[in-house]
């Protein structure tokens, strides 16, 4: 009996993600109480999105991948890990055979924490669960242990909900959106660097006074925010460095522009397919917790339109490419995810309240961490992509893939390392770090704030006399 199930399961797996994805999403949809036709259409939409991403990746492999390899050979820079973008990584995540278990584990974590009053963030933005799920998928891939994979995703989820809680006042205050928190790891992960670094910068005499503004940054750097032009420019430069002839350089420019414009269109299919499931989850959970005032967890996309965020991002984008070349040991060639730099800096901007000097320092340190973590975990990500039928082996595996999402994010990277290291040592360390951070934000910080507020009131009353 067991053998029969395994044979069936293996047959199903070997059919590949384009077949598996519609079936798995249909099942998830049915569990959320969707009608069969709605659930199936959701699943099919995701399957189409996956097929689309696969097409683009194949196109990217033959054009960009080959050019990157030629550039590496020609000028000897060691940038042999191609940044294929968060959308591609999300597609790989949703196509994983254990995705259904992870989604429900993450949702259950949220519901249980809400019931225990351990969080106030109601996160039913199912789409963004992929950031938490990919860590579990990678842990499962490395250790071969499903339970460890699930545990890793649960830890990612729990810590993310807490960070969303803790950063909520800042989000409400700076961006002016009340009742909303942002459990989007691609944005919150930066806070792991920004919180301590901002604290440090505030305590260096002289440095803590620096601030400047750039009025025309958007006017002159605006093209870095335009995917079309940026893809074209990058393509021309890489083609030139690869030693291509003029016609090939121009062709590469247009191809890279095409990749940057088309990936988001394919990724949008995933979003579209998941809407009914997210809505069902939202309805159910808001009904369930209707007596409590909760923060609705939203995608950080709602804050990256802020002017300070855009200015910071436009300056960081060209510096990201410079860092990739300069930093010793970096292997990532930034490409598709240059488009989402605003997400990586958004919460740093809120934390510093738009101090451009501090934003740039924090932004650069964050970028360095993205490049290094991305370099270190690229081999695992490449193998996982191959497992779901995205064969990125370029020039006999000389080029790997990565992004500025998944375990390139410091938060995800640390949890991934904790679950794939020597558990005897890493687990206690992880628990202590999380507990200490929790204690600081829930016990020490609120007291401090009260003290400061009390002082302010005191001085005010003295002044009044």
């Amino acid at each position, binding site marked *: 009996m067991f053998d029969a199930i395994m044979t069936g399961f293996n047959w199903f797996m070997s059919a590949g993600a384009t077949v598996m994805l519609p079936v798995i999403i249909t099942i998830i949809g049915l569990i959320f109480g969707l009608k069969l036709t709605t659930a199936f259409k959701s699943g099919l939409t995701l399957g189409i999105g996956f097929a689309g991403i696969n097409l683009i990746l194949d196109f990217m492999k033959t054009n960009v991948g080959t050019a990157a390899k030629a550039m590496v050979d020609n000028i000897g820079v060691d940038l042999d890990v191609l940044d294929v973008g968060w959308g591609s990584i999300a597609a790989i995540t949703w196509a994983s055979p254990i995705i259904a278990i992870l989604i429900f584990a993450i949702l259950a974590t949220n519901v249980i924490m809400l019931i225990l009053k351990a969080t106030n963030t109601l996160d039913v933005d199912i*789409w963004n669960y992929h950031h938490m799920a990919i860590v579990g998928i990678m842990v499962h891939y490395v250790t071969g242990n499903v339970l460890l994979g699930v545990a890793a995703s649960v830890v990612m989820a729990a810590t993310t909900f807490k960070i969303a809680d803790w950063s909520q006042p800042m989000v409400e205050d700076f961006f002016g959106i009340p009742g909303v928190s942002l459990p989007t790891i691609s944005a919150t992960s930066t806070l792991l660097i920004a919180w301590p670094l901002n604290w440090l910068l505030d305590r260096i005499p002289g440095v803590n006074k620096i601030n400047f503004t750039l009025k025309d940054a958007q006017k002159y750097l605006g093209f870095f925010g335009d995917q079309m032009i940026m893809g074209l420019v990058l393509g021309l430069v890489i083609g030139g460095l690869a030693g291509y002839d003029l016609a090939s350089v121009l062709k590469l420019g247009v191809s890279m522009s095409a990749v940057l414009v088309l990936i988001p269109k394919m990724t949008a299919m995933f979003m579209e397919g998941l809407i009914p499931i997210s809505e069902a989850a939202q309805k159910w959970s808001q009904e369930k917790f209707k007596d409590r005032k909760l923060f609705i967890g*939203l995608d*950080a*996309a709602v804050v990256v339109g802020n002017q300070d965020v855009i200015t910071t991002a436009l300056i960081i984008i060209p510096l990201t490419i410079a860092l990739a070349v300069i930093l010793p040991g970096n292997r990532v060639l930034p490409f598709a995810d240059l488009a989402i730099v605003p997400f990586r800096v958004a919460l740093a901007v809120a934390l510093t309240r738009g101090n451009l000097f501090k934003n740039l320092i924090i932004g650069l340190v964050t970028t360095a961490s993205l490049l290094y973590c991305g370099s270190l975990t690229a081999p695992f990500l490449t193998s996982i992509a191959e497992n779901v039928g995205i064969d990125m082996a370029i020039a006999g595996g000389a080029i790997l893939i990565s992004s500025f999402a998944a375990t390139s994010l410091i938060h995800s990277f640390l949890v991934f390392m904790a679950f794939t290291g020597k558990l005897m040592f890493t687990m206690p360390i992880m628990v202590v770090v999380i507990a200490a951070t929790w204690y600081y934000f829930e016990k020490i910080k609120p007291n401090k704030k009260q003290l400061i507020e009390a002082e302010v009131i005191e001085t005010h009353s003295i002044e009044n006399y």
Partner: protein
Amino acid sequence: MKRVLVACGNGIATSTVVASKIRDYAKGKGVEITTTQCKLMEVAGKADYFDLVVTTGQFSGNSTTPVVRALSLLTGIGQEATLESIVDHLR
């Protein structure tokens, strides 16, 4: 046929959700529309070609086209009122 420009941070995530809700609602009210998605950064350059701009985030630029903020379509709180006002703009 009225044209609606839906903008969010990256032109993918939340704008897809909002665009799909607006399309469904307008269809239910018998108003024919098409939606186009873009990044907030691109609104200034594109707004003139549309009858209405709907954003999920802050939009601080100038635009002669009316702009509706639609955060409520993501949180679900006050969703009906926002959809109502969007369709009113398009009648």
